[in-house]
């Protein structure tokens, strides 16, 4: 179980507990957190679960998957700390993770 904080573009934070093994995207979708669309359902076939991982957390979450950057090229305003939240797996190690949501997904 990990406590994850999703911060909307407006600055509004949502902190929830997400079960180990789920993805950061699934945590958001299951808890109706606005700002994560996840059109493809976690298949790394779109870029609509795009998040910015808070800098000090970037190296602590699991590494990018092959092909993830290819999808991020197509995201709205990708940055150095961009990730697809469907590719970040939740575990005890990322308890306290903070991710920022982009202005929009599409």
């Amino acid at each position, binding site marked *: 179980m990990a406590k994850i904080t999703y911060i909307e573009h407006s600055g509004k934070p949502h902190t929830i507990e997400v079960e180990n093994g789920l993805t950061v995207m699934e945590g958001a979708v299951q808890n109706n957190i606005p700002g994560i669309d996840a059109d493809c359902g976690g298949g790394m076939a779109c870029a609509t679960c795009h998040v910015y991982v808070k800098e000090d957390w970037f190296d602590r979450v699991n590494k990018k998957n092959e092909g993830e950057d290819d999808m991020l*090229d197509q995201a709205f305003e990708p940055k150095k700390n961009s990730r697809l939240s469907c590719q970040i797996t939740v575990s005890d190690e990322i308890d306290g993770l903070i991710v920022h949501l982009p202005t929009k997904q599409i």
Partner: protein
Amino acid sequence: MRKTDALIIGAGPTGLFTAHQLKIIGLDCEIVDNLDKVGGQCIELYPDKPIYDIPAIPECTGEELTKNLLDQLKPFNINFHLGERVDELKKNDGNWEVKTNKGKIFLTPNVIIAGGVGSFEPRKFSPKECKQFEDKSIFYSIKNKKIFEGKTVSIFGGGDSALDWAVELSKNSKVNLIHRRDEFRGAQATLDKVYELKKSGKIKLFTKYQLKTVKGNGILESIDIEHENKEIKNLKSDYVLGFFGLIMQLGPIANWGLNLNKKTVEVDTEKFETNQKGIYAIGDICNYPGKLKLILSGFHEGALAARACFKLARPNEKYRFEFTTSSKKIKERLGVKSD
């Protein structure tokens, strides 16, 4: 005005197989798709990626699946309207009148939305000031490459489109190629060519840069690009091209008075009908308890929606369930001999 028993919106696998189901039971149909080719997400997103969960096909790519579905439609004469988006839908004396962005009008009792996750549109630049130059100096696709001759063109993107056009336009234009990271995702051969052209000075390459702003008074003059480390460079540019791939938007469907749940359309599981009589939603775009976004689910949904279409298209006839193995009528429609 074109009259048809059913209009299918979306030529992805679900739309294609539904056309087959309609024709098998003796209804005609027409298909509209915003893309300029059939196949939907299968072709646009993953033409080369193998799919492993199509019943009775252990492995096939999106491209092969599309080809097979088209082969299955060969016995039938079906009109495709590609590169057209359905914009308006209104009631007309018990039928639906549907208008495309190119002004084509369909009159039909049945509209089947097989729109996947919406229509594909190019991802655009995010700075707001880009909008005023769109289709004048900023483009997301190229219709006439002649306009770039002798000009300075800044190309953004890291995929095949960006690389191909950088190589092509470098023959007669000054080309800047800008990408947000060092790795490109295009074909290696094209990438080698780009590096070669960079060496010979034909292409200027800027990686880890993104578009910050565009400048010009009516006519584009220059652009600012920003490095990951916040450093800004100004590049003189006559034209800017953005190739960031396609995004999917629900588009005009959102305005048709359908019950929406996020970006999906709510349907029943008997007819896959929406809250509007005669409008159905199938495949990835529909939503009901237990919905799976699998191609095979789209096939099932299409088969049932097609039967529901029969009632509205042939109100005075009774639909009779038949198997393709034994029905003489179906074999006639397929153009195969009966035993």
